[in-house]
């Protein structure tokens, strides 16, 4: 552990000084053999960061008024006379390079160009502007571009959005097979994940081994973990905003990737030249061969299938108006030991209109539909059944932005959505009438929000941003709602009556004001301090007894028993960039207070449960932490170190002593991992070869150990008393990858080979420690490890 840390620090120190891309003094080209005319100078232009050839860049010799264009390999050739020239290299979106030379003989020039404006985009985490982290009043907004994610070792052959985010400070995952993110001590359901503006309920394939978004069709991903802009609401912890790419209006192209687990293809191009573009992407797994090759008989008889697909049509109909339609779907099924199949499917449509009404006033309107369908299908031969569940969201948003000036902006707007949940319908599928069809009452609700935000700067030193969001929510009929005796725990036994609500009748209303504010003071161009506060409301709850998002989970709207979750967060941060933004550092401190988080009664039944209120207990939560971050943006070696010390606690105090958890004391939540360290490095060995490494360490998550062993009905059982008082062993893992860009003839041969190994030293990191009295072995503690061995993968990707 210590050695690896030292190695990283050593590597970070290497190559700290970026090479300059243009010579400061005139370069003499060629071997001087006294040639005067017809000097042939050839060369190649590549992207400084990615090493990719720049096709169609212009090479101008002003003295001779000639301009050449680079070919498919980024190559060019000039025929010059013996003289001094000031050659200019230009490429759209890149910084122009002035290159003074003296041509004395045939020779070669290699040019590396940097993207302009966002010249650090490829590696900068904090937005596009190298000093944005210092200057903006945003706190805890992290944008990861796809190029950044490509620098990380791939997970099972692919860029994985969720896992990439988990490498950042304050963001963690429960374990190796968990799809959700825990952001600053919040649960996985407290993050709003939206794709092209539409909410997505299950962001995973294969229970979290893969992320359900195809990285080739994603443009960028922004995570808001501290002060969330007022235009976002509805979840209490964080917002994950994923935006798809738009296709090219100029020419057809695409990406193809094949790995030993899955394959994906995306194609984009002009539907109507220079007017309408289309992008389509599809990814499918062929992981069955892998499952079938394992020796565990249960896994061997298992089947897993998944795919996801995207379609984006964008129409920049005029300079000031653009329409974008996005369709997204993902599907999974998993047959465990072949008699129970679990499946889930996300579908999202969204249509967006962006318009610049005047030079200062802009408008954005978005409508979406999102569906999440999931089911369990039992084909064991006895009492066969299907359980189907679904969630449907239909909504719209409208934002107006007015820029008084570059440093004084206002955004305001409104949002409305309807949510319909079918928590579960059991349909017998066997012959005869042996079990009854069953249906849990459907749920309906609507949410509306209005918001405004004002951002302005006072001189160079001060920046302010403040906003307010008002959310209102209604829980709607038709529904039969139970009443319970007062002064008794809510249970089947204390039910005293029922009320019938008609279709569309309002059963319960909640509303609340959510202020957002942040303040920045800059000490200099390269260092600043920021303060932030925000309050968020959440009207939907993930009712899950497991540590990960599972299709057996139930989503539940707030009702007259289950109040909305409310989070208050205070944050403070210090930001400093060094050496001309090559190094970025930050320290952030936060404190978060959570109300109405859901906890469960012992042994709660959550599936097909018509009276969930009898199984749930409201809890309060508290989270705090310090996040340290050092990042190196440029050079042969890039990467970052992130370290978080944080706690995530829960407390349950009810009027009824028997329902209190851990006697009403604070206890660690299921995902409380105090120390969390990630080291990431990417080292460019040459322009076409790079090596990347990720090392992650975190404290083991809490677990409950038995207080005693007792016998009942021939079983040795564990008696558990206090929740989450012990911890599973610490987690650490090293992943390595080698990427080789193969330059061949013709466009289908310009491919990327990536070989990666996850869990290089094969640590059996426990996902859980559990206690079991299994047949043929004594009652004992057992460890479940998801990735017990080093796991290699090979992938090949081409752009065409």
């Amino acid at each position, binding site marked *: 552990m210590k050695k690896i840390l030292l190695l990283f620090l050593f590597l970070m120190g290497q190559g700290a000084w970026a090479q300059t891309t243009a010579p400061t003094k005139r370069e003499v080209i060629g071997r001087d053999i006294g040639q005067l005319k017809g000097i042939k100078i050839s060369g190649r232009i590549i992207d400084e960061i990615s090493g990719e050839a720049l096709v169609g860049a212009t090479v101008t010799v002003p003295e001779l008024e000639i301009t050449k264009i680079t070919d498919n390999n980024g190559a060019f050739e000039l025929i010059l006379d013996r003289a001094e020239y000031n050659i200019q290299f230009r490429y759209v979106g890149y910084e122009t390079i002035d290159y003074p030379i003296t041509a004395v003989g045939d020779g070669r020039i290699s040019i590396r160009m940097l993207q302009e404006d966002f010249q650090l985009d490829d590696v900068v985490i904090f937005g596009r502007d190298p000093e944005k982290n210092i200057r903006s009043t945003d706190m805890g907004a992290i944008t990861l571009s796809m190029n950044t994610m490509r620098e990380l070792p791939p997970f099972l052959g692919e860029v994985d959005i969720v896992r990439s985010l988990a490498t950042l400070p304050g963001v963690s995952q429960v*374990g190796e*097979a968990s799809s959700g993110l825990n952001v600053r001590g919040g649960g996985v359901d407290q993050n709003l994940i939206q794709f092209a503006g539409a909410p997505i309920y299950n962001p995973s394939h294969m229970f979290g081994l893969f992320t359900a978004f195809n990285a080739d069709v994603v443009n960028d991903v922004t995570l808001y973990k501290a002060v969330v802009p007022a235009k976002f609401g509805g979840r209490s912890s964080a917002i994950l905003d994923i935006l798809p790419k738009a296709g090219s209006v100029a020419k057809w192209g695409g990406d193809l990737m094949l790995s030993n687990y899955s394959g994906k293809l995306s194609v984009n191009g002009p539907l109507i030249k220079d007017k309408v573009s289309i992008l389509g992407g599809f990814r499918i797994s062929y992981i069955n061969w892998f499952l079938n090759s*394992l020796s*565990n*008989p*249960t896994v*061997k*008889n298992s089947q897993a299938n998944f795919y996801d697909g995207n379609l984006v049509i964008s129409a920049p109909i005029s300079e000031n108006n653009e329409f974008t339609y996005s369709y997204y779907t993902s599907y999974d099924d998993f047959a465990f030991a072949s008699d129970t199949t679990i499946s889930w499917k996300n579908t999202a449509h969204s249509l967006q209109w962006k318009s610049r009404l005047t030079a200062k006033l802009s408008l954005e309107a978005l409508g979406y539909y999102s569906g999440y369908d999931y089911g369990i299908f039992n084909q064991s031969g*006895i*009492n066969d059944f299907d359980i189907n569940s679904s969630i449907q969201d239909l909504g719209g948003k409208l934002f107006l932005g007015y820029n008084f000036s570059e440093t004084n902006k206002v955004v305001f707007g409104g949002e409305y959505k309807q949510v319909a949940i079918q928590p579960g319908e059991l349909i017998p599928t066997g012959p005869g*009438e*042996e*079990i*009854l069809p*069953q249906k849990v009452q459907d749920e309906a609700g609507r949410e509306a929000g209005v918001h405004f935000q004002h951002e302005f700067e006072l001189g160079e030193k001060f920046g302010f941003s403040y906003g307010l969001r008002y959310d209102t929510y209604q829980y709607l009929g038709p529904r039969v709602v139970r009443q319970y005796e007062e002064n008794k725990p809510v249970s089947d036994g204390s039910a005293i009556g029922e009320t019938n609500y008609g279709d569309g009748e309002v059963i319960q209303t909640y509303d609340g004001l959510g202020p957002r504010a942040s303040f920045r003071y800059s000490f200099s161009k390269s260092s600043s301090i920021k303060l932030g506060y925000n309050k968020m409301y959440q009207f939907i709850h993930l009712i899950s007894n*497991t540590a*990960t998002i599972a299709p*057996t989970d139930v989503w539940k709207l707030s009702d007259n028993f289950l109040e909305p979750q409310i989070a208050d967060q205070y944050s403070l941060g210090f930001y400093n960039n060094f050496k001309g933004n090559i190094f970025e550092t930050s320290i952030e401190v936060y404190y978060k207070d959570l109300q109405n988080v859901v906890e*469960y009664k*012992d*042994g709660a039944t959550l599936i*097909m449960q018509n009276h969930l209120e009898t199984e749930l207990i409201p809890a309060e939560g508290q989270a705090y932490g310090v996040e340290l971050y050092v990042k190196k943006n440029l050079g042969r070696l890039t990467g970052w170190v992130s370290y978080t010390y944080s706690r995530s606690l829960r407390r349950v105090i009810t009027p009824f002593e028997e329902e209190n958890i851990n006697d009403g004391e604070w206890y660690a939540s299921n995902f409380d991992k105090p120390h969390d360290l990630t080291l990431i490095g990417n080292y460019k060995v040459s322009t076409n070869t790079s090596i990347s490494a990720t090392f992650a360490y975190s404290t083991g998550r809490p677990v*409950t*150990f*038995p*207080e*005693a*062993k*007792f*016998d*009942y*009905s*021939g*079983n*040795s059982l*564990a*008696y*558990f*008393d206090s929740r989450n008082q012990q911890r599973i062993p610490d987690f650490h893992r090293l992943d390595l990858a080698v990427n080789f860009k193969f330059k061949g003839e013709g466009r289908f041969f310009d491919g990327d080979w990536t070989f990666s190994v996850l869990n290089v030293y094969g640590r*059996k990191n*426990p*996902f*859980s*420690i*559990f*206690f*079991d009295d299994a*047949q043929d072995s*004594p*009652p*004992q*503690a*057992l*460890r*479940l490890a*998801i*990735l*017990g*061995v080093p*796991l290699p993968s090979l992938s090949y990707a081409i752009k065409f």
Partner: protein
Amino acid sequence: MACIDPYQVDVPQGQQLLTVEGLIHTGLGPHSITLTRSDTYGSVFEGLVRPVTGATVVIRDNEGRIIFLTEGQEARGSYFTPVDFRAEIGKSYTLQIQTADGRVYTSLPERVESAPEIENINLNTVTVPVEGETTPRSGVQLISEINDPADQNNFYFWRISPLVYVLETRPDLFTPRPTPEKPDRIPEPKPCCAVCYRTEITGNQSLFIAQDDNFNGLTTRIPAGFIEDDGLRFVNKLRVDLRQYAISQEAYRFLRLVKQQAEISGSIFDPPPATIRGNMISLDNPEEVVLGYFMAAGESSRRIYIDNSDLTFNQIAATIPDDCRVVAWANVDPPVDWNP
């Protein structure tokens, strides 16, 4: 890729908590209550669960009648009702215990409901593949066919009686060691004991329980028991009584927690550990935790003889070379009521 293996952890020193396991019902007695003390949950030989002996155990019904239980001579820690005791439908019972050190415990009252009849027992052969083995494990699932009463919420619990089954020897394989007198290896079966009847007391390894939420008022089939084929049991014929109990809602909830814990598989979807609280309380110290549950239930039962041809998959028969009496609990005479 994923794997489960034993893991050494430091478990807190276990508490010695009184544990009660008992079921009285409307069937034939004697019924038993077993008292033990919990211990540390740990590695192999740590924390032995010991019987609690020398306690005074009584059952009291809602009419004030008291039944004294006597501790078994051999089965220490188990306390038995008189043979003629049967619980009566509609009555409530409480269990009262005074341990040798003078501490007094009582259960909450349990009411006896009548159990629907077992209309029929269906059989289903189950095979489970085993890692690294060519033959799977197998056995017979007993499926209870019931007419669930529509007018009430029913909670079911099943147990099976001791198994009685026929053992067959392989005398054709019994060849005496060659001696100068008898150089040839002609089999010499003993005339006495080619066939035996073995009575085996086996617990149902899994708990079989059900509630009628999704079959209320229907004629339905519910898995109610499982007998593993160990190569001896299903060689010829096996007899078992399936006992069906109507238990209370609280007892069902307790057993569901026990079952949930007994069946965790170590998957990522396992529910978190739950506190299994029973219906016993200490009268001296309300804070004292008492484990286990005292149940009172109506019983219905049905006998079935299972022929080896009823199974669709049989384990290779274990070989008993000559004398079947060498097998424990085996007898050459069938039980008096053996009537296949």
